[in-house]
């Protein structure tokens, strides 16, 4: 006689219930498949032209020469993340060595340095006021450090723990003010937090795996943000309701970076599948792929120039590829880093862009001349 726990349910009702649940499940799965096909059909109906066709008559871009204008040295290990201050000259960066540094990019001076209690500080962000920075990583938290004018003051003393996730913090961003922070995590969720109280204001569930990146829509476009994850999906969320309002799944691997187009009507993504893609929110579909057969390494981060015409991508093969967003062609390839480019941001006034790398440095580049 088999042990009691190994016998099938003796109670007939339980057996019937199980069968009923399985039938409903099968029914739901069918409906799921039908809805997915219908979604694809609807999207395809409106796919009447390619972006580059619409841009055929647009004048091509000349050759670009962008030179490294500043090299920021000081981190003891891989640079994982960076962000610009709204003043267009200060930069915050975070590293595997557990340090978060605030730089004056004009002079290359280090203005502040904080040692985090964990290594792999994967995320950092500057507050809109310029008076604080947020960071986190393997500690599963996002902490805010007010920046003191007194260089001798120990910043760690004023540290405020804001977000708590159940896995690593992958990205963080202040919203329009210093009062709220949006985070994404290896625990598969994004969350909105009140900085002062540390209270969770809204959580965003829908990704099936680690969320690696997020970007807030430009303020004029309203309260939405986009996130990308290891489930190859890019999701657009309503910040107030917590609802996922649009979802895109065309990448073939993890999405490491997402960034809104300056008008807010589209966003770009960079992935381990070595491509960058552009998704238009009103057409509700992918409208361009930026790729080349010769590019086989993953994209770690992407950002647009001010007009949205150029898309900069930092790659794991140590290079930066610059794409003509409208025509879909590559206009420039930039060298200089001696290891993976892990993070890339264009400055707030669009005059320069900064990259951080596993080679421990950050480089600020600006245009040199147009040939």
């Amino acid at each position, binding site marked *: 006689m088999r042990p009691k726990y190994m016998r099938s349910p003796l109670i007939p009702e*339980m057996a019937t219930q*199980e069968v009923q*649940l*399985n039938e*409903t*499940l099968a029914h*739901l*799965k069918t*409906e*799921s498949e039908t*809805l*997915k096909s*219908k*979604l694809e059909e*609807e*999207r395809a109906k*409106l*796919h*009447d*032209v*390619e*972006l580059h*066709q*619409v*841009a055929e008559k647009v004048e091509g*871009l000349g050759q670009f020469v*962008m030179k490294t*204008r500043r090299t920021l040295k000081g981190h003891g290990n891989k640079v994982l993340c960076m962000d610009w201050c709204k003043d*267009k000259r200060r930069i915050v960066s975070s590293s595997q060595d557990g340090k978060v540094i605030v730089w004056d*990019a*004009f002079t290359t001076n280090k203005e502040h340095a904080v040692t985090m209690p964990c290594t792999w500080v994967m995320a950092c962000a500057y507050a809109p006021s310029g008076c604080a920075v947020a960071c986190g990583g393997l500690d599963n938290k996002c902490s805010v450090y007010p920046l003191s004018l007194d260089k001798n003051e120990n910043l760690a003393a004023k540290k405020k723990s804001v977000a708590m996730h159940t896995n690593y913090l992958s990205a963080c961003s202040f919203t329009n003010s210093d009062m709220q922070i949006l985070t994404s995590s290896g625990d598969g969720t994004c969350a909105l937090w009140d900085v002062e109280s540390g209270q969770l204001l809204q959580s965003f569930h*829908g990704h099936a795996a680690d969320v690696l990146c997020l970007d807030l829509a430009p303020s004029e476009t309203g309260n939405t943000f986009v996130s990308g994850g290891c489930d190859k999906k890019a999701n657009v969320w309503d910040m107030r309701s917590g609802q996922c*309002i*649009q*979802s895109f799944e065309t990448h073939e691997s993890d999405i490491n970076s997402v960034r809104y*187009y300056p*008008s807010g*009507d589209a966003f770009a993504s960079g992935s381990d599948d070595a491509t960058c893609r552009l998704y*238009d929110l*009103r*057409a*509700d579909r992918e*409208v361009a792929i930026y790729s080349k057969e010769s590019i086989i390494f993953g994209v770690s981060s992407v950002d647009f*120039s*001010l*007009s*949205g*015409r*150029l898309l900069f991508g930092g790659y794991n093969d140590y290079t930066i590829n610059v794409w003509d*967003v*409208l025509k879909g062609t590559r206009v420039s390839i930039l060298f200089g880093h001696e290891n993976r480019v892990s993070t890339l941001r*264009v400055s707030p*006034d*669009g*005059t*320069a862009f900064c990259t951080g790398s596993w080679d421990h440095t950050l480089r600020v580049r*600006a*245009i*040199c001349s*147009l040939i």
Partner: protein
Amino acid sequence: MSNNNASNNLIIAQRAVKQLRLEASTRRIKVSQAAAELRNFCLQNASKDPLLMGVPSSDNPFRPPKSCSLF
């Protein structure tokens, strides 16, 4: 125990269907229209894009730092 798994799967499946229904109801415009608007935005803002147009060295905060020559 198997009933719990089945009800969990059920909840997940119900959520997925609900989400898909929401996404199916999104209003969409034609790519031709969306693409034209992306293109127009680029063109309208091109002249203000420093990384696209370049800026005179005197205006560029990241111009090369002035170097001293030693004779």
